[in-house]
């Protein structure tokens, strides 16, 4: 295998097929691809997705280590994070599949599915294709296997311990550090705040231009922690085109629109029934209840503040009914 996998984890991958891509097996699931499509097979069914859509979803699942709750690759296939193990499912959150009893779910120790997905992402991502980029910023995902793009798929994920820009924490982005201003944000002011510490307090007060920082992000739809107040994580991100996954919460999360606009389709988490449509504009604040799933559409690169509560007790409190699925009852 080309990519380094964690010791003790054996990824089940076959030899390259006629298009140059390996087939991967995880339990009774099988993943294969050709020049255009990815095929997912399981004992009671099969599914096909466009290779670019699959890889963009897979990239998020790998980069976020299965994130919070459900990462739906589309309306059929996805994963559920149990924070130590992960479910891989087909049709489990699709009303038709459930009613026909054709859905399938398997649970794995996280290292096994993580390493399998990493290997799959590496093998199936060709040179020039960046699953994190917007469509007009990247080459094609299609065609026979051609090279790789390890630099793109193994980016460092920003996780500030306290706040970006503080000593010892995540640095701010600059031209020199390899983060030019994105073409959609050339008009965003790059001025820094005036930070005037008294002698001896240089490391105790701090401030940075968050909007400029976000204007220099080289990825889309990738919440990354810029400030942390205990379990309260501010994870702003820049969004363009379509969120490559449909996110099913296992906790309430919040969105604050910092710039431009995003259109959200919001559905019932378990059945996919349409619930609301939300168009968020600058200054808008919205919660996403713990029983829905959502997918966003951004016509221009926009800045979104995603706010998470990382308390590990929340999923069980919600699933057991000890907490309501809404943020506030009024």
């Amino acid at each position: 295998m080309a990519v380094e996998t964690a010791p003790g984890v054996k990824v089940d991958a076959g030899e390259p097929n006629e298009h140059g891509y390996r087939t991967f097996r995880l339990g009774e699931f099988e993943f294969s691809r050709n020049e255009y499509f990815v095929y997912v097979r399981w004992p009671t069914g099969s599914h096909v997705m466009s290779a670019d859509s699959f890889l963009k979803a897979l990239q998020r699942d790998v980069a976020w280590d299965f994130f919070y709750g459900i990462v739906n690759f589309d309306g059929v296939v996805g994963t559920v994070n149990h924070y130590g193990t992960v479910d891989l499912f087909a049709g489990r959150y699709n009303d038709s599949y459930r009613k026909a009893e054709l859905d399938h779910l398997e649970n794995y120790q996280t290292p096994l599915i993580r390493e399998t997905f990493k290997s799959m992402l590496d093998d199936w991502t060709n040179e020039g294709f960046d699953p994190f980029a917007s469509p007009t910023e990247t080459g094609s995902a299609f065609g026979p296997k051609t090279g790789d793009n390890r630099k793109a798929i193994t980016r460092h994920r920003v996780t500030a311990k306290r706040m970006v820009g503080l000593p010892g924490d995540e640095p701010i982005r600059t031209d020199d550090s390899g983060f030019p201003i994105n073409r959609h944000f050339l008009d965003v002011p790059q001025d820094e705040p005036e930070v005037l510490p008294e002698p001896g307090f240089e490391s105790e007060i701090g401030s940075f231009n968050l909007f400029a920082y976000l204007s220099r992000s080289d990825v889309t739809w990738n919440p990354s922690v810029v400030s942390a107040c205990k379990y309260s994580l501010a994870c702003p991100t820049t969004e363009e085109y379509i969120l490559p996954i449909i996110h099913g919460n296992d906790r309430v999360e919040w969105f604050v629109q910092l710039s431009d606009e995003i259109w959200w389709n919001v559905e019932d988490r378990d059945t996919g029934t349409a619930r609301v449509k939300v168009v968020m504009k600058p200054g808008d604040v919205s919660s996403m209840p713990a029983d829905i799933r959502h997918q966003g559409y951004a016509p221009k690169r926009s800045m979104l503040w995603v706010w998470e509560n990382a308390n590990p007790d929340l999923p069980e409190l919600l699933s057991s009914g000890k907490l309501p699925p809404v943020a506030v009852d009024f």
Partner: protein
Amino acid sequence: MRFKSWPGPPGRPRGVDEVTKYQTKFGTLNDYEKGILEVIDDDPKRYTYSNMFEVASMSNPYEKVAVAKNMEFVLEVVRAEGASDWRICSHDEFALVMDGEVEFRFIKPDDASLVPPPEKEGSVALSGEPTGTRMGLVRARNGHMTLLPAGAAYRMKADQPGVVMLQTIAGDDTVYKWAEICRTIP
């Protein structure tokens, strides 16, 4: 629109020759547009949908209005106008200026008992400027995020009305007015 030698907004490289096709839209206290919550099959109250500029337009100066809540954690919107009280907190807080210019001043109080104990979450107001060592100041404008460090007394000041969003924990002075600020009917 083509700019050859136009300097552009502050901080932008001079002499950049490019076609500017994209205009990034931010909101301000005097210029914002609320979005849309289109209900198909749900209760709009579940989405606690509001707009921070509208909230700030209806707020008293430095009233800490919660616009988001997740268990004990809150995002508060503050109308920054004039000088605030001095406040202090047992944990870090973060202030994002969404409109205007805000000066943050910090003092390390001589009286350590002014710092709330760790179990007391959310900031508390002090009775006045505490005696202590000046730590410095930050002047922040649109888009600037400032650390309000644990244990440091701080005060905000804005010569013109502005808007600050605080990432913090709910405290004694957090104001809840969900029914007033949120969309409640389909």
